[in-house]
C-alpha cells in the first residue's frame, strides 16, 4: 500500500495542482479536467490490446527468432522490419516504450529499436493519410522521405555513440523489467 502511494506520488501531486487550478480559475481547471478525462478514455481504449499483444509476444516468440530477424546480424532486413513494425502502429509514443522493452529483452539490435521508435513516432501509416489530407501531399511526402533518412541516421548515430557497456546495461535492465 505504502509502495503504491510512493509510485503514484507524482500523479497525486499533479491531481492536487489541477484541483487548485479548479478552485482558483474554474474555467481553466474545468477544461484541463475535461481534456485529461478524454485523453485517459482514449488511452484506455487504445492501450489494452497493445499490452495483451506484448504479453503474447513475450510468451510465444522465442528469443532466438527475434535475434535472427532483428538481432545484431539481421542487417537490412532487421532494419526494414523495425521500420514496418513501427509504421503500422496506431497508438501514442508512450505505448511504444514497453514494446521496445520486450524487443530489447528478446535480443533485438539496439539501432533497430531506435528505428522502431522513430517510425512509431513519425511515419505511422494511419497518420500519414491524415497528414496528406490536411497538409497537402507535398508537405506530407517531403516530410516522409526526409523522415526515412532521419530515422536511419538517428538510429545509426545512437548505436555508434553508446558504448558497449552502456548498451549492455540497457539490455540487462530490460530483462529485469517484465518479470512476473
Amino acid at each position, binding site marked *: 500500500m505504502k509502495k503504491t502511494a510512493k509510485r503514484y506520488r507524482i500523479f497525486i501531486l499533479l491531481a492536487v495542482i489541477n484541483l487548485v487550478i479548479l478552485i482558483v480559475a474554474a474555467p481553466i481547471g474545468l477544461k*484541463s479536467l475535461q481534456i485529461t478525462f478524454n485523453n485517459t478514455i482514449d*488511452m484506455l481504449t487504445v492501450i489494452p490490446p497493445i499490452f*495483451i499483444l506484448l*504479453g*503474447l509476444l513475450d510468451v510465444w516468440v522465442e528469443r532466438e527468432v527475434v535475434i535472427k530477424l532483428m538481432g545484431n546480424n539481421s542487417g537490412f532486413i532487421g532494419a526494414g522490419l523495425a521500420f514496418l513494425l513501427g509504421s503500422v502502429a496506431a497508438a501514442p509514443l508512450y505505448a511504444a*516504450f514497453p514494446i521496445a*522493452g520486450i524487443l530489447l529483452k528478446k535480443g533485438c539490435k539496439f539501432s533497430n529499436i531506435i528505428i522502431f521508435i522513430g517510425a512509431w513516432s513519425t511515419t505511422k501509416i494511419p497518420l500519414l493519410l491524415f497528414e496528406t489530407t490536411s497538409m497537402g501531399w507535398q*508537405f506530407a511526402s517531403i*516530410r516522409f522521405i526526409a523522415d526515412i533518412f532521419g530515422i536511419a541516421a538517428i538510429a545509426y548515430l545512437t548505436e555508434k555513440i553508446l558504448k558497449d557497456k552502456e548498451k549492455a546495461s540497457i539490455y540487462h535492465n530490460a530483462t529485469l523489467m517484465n518479470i512476473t
Partner: protein
Amino acid sequence: MATALVYLVTWLLLIFSLVKDKQKTITAIKKAWKSFENILPQILSIMVIIGILLALLTPATISQLIGNRSGWIGMIIASTIGSIALIPGFVAFPLAAALLEHGAGYMQIAVFISTLMMVGIITIPLEINYFGKKATILRNSMAFAFSYIVAVIIGVFLK
C-alpha cells in the same frame, strides 16, 4: 478504424493462443497486466500534464505565438512548444492546417509537427526507464536537430 483492427487481431491471437496452450496464455495476460501497471503512474501523470498544458495553451494562444511571427524566433517557439506538447496527430494536423491558413510559415509549422511527433520532453522519464539517460537524451536531441533540417527542406520546396 485502426483501433478496431488492433482489437480484432488481438482477439484472434488471444483465442488462438488459448486453444494452443491455456497456461501460457494466462502467463501472457499476467505479464500484460504487470507491464501495464508498471507504467500506469507515469502515463496518468502525463495525462494530467497534457490536460493542464492544453487548457492553458489554447489554439488561439499557439496561433498568436507562431502564427504571424516568422523567422527563427517563430521556429524556436514552435519547436519548444512541439517538444513539450503531446497533442495527438489527429488534433495536431488540423491545428497546423488552421495555423497555416492564418498566416503561419511552412517552416514553423514543419518544425512544430516534427518536434511534436519525435521529441517528447514530458515522456522523457518514461523513456529513461527503458533506455537509460544517455540513449534517451541522445535520441531526443538528435530528433530535435533533425526537425530543423526537415523544416529547412520544406522551406526550400514549399514557399
